[in-house]
């Protein structure tokens, strides 16, 4: 499953990943941090190119499922304004063993940050800017 949503429901993600053939479930949740490069962050806003973002996430998901033989894989990204602590991205996998689950989960988030057309605007107390490089 890949989705762009207004609000991420983490409990629902965990439920969706449940699979009787899976012995290991690994989930990464990205949340809004209150600081960036020494500045206080007040909120984030995400712009997305929905149709292409879905298409790019599907490619990444399919690659991960084939490479690690996953039972399930999920990628969800939020859109719009997000406050400190809000979940903005969640990727998760269900695999037979942790040996596949951990690297597959890391692959999903690392590749998402490289190619999926989603843009983050950081708001500070007195300014804002589009993030152009993801650490």
């Amino acid at each position, binding site marked *: 499953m890949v989705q762009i949503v207004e609000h991420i429901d983490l409990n629902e993600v965990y439920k969706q990943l449940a699979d009787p053939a899976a012995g290991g479930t690994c989930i990464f949740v*990205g949340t809004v941090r209150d600081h960036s490069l020494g500045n206080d962050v007040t909120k984030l806003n*995400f*712009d*997305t*190119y929905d*149709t*292409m*973002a879905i*298409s790019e996430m599907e490619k990444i998901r399919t690659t991960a499922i084939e490479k690690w033989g996953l039972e399930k894989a999920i990628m969800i*990204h939020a859109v719009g304004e997000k406050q400190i602590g809000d979940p*903005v*991205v969640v990727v998760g996998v269900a695999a037979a063993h942790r040996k596949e689950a951990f690297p597959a989960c890391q692959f999903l*988030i690392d590749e*998402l*940050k*490289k*190619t*999926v*057309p*989603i*843009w*983050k*605007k950081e708001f500070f107390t007195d300014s804002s800017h*589009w*993030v*152009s*490089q*993801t650490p």
Partner: protein
Amino acid sequence: MIVVKAFGQVKEVLGSELLVNKEMTDVKSLREYLRNEYPTIVWSTVAIAVNTQYAHDPDPISSGDEIALIPPVSGG
């Protein structure tokens, strides 16, 4: 005429949709047009997508294609 979608920092300069009233045959010709018309944007960092796929300079553009400008992504 082609319609070009813009996102992120490029959208703040061009608006969400840009109408190009000129014949474009490939990605390279569109890129050159944009460079001339909007010199304040750092076009070397902006990818161009055709029909939701990342495209390269030699790739053709036809009327009816969905074209989008993709500045450096920063999801997650």
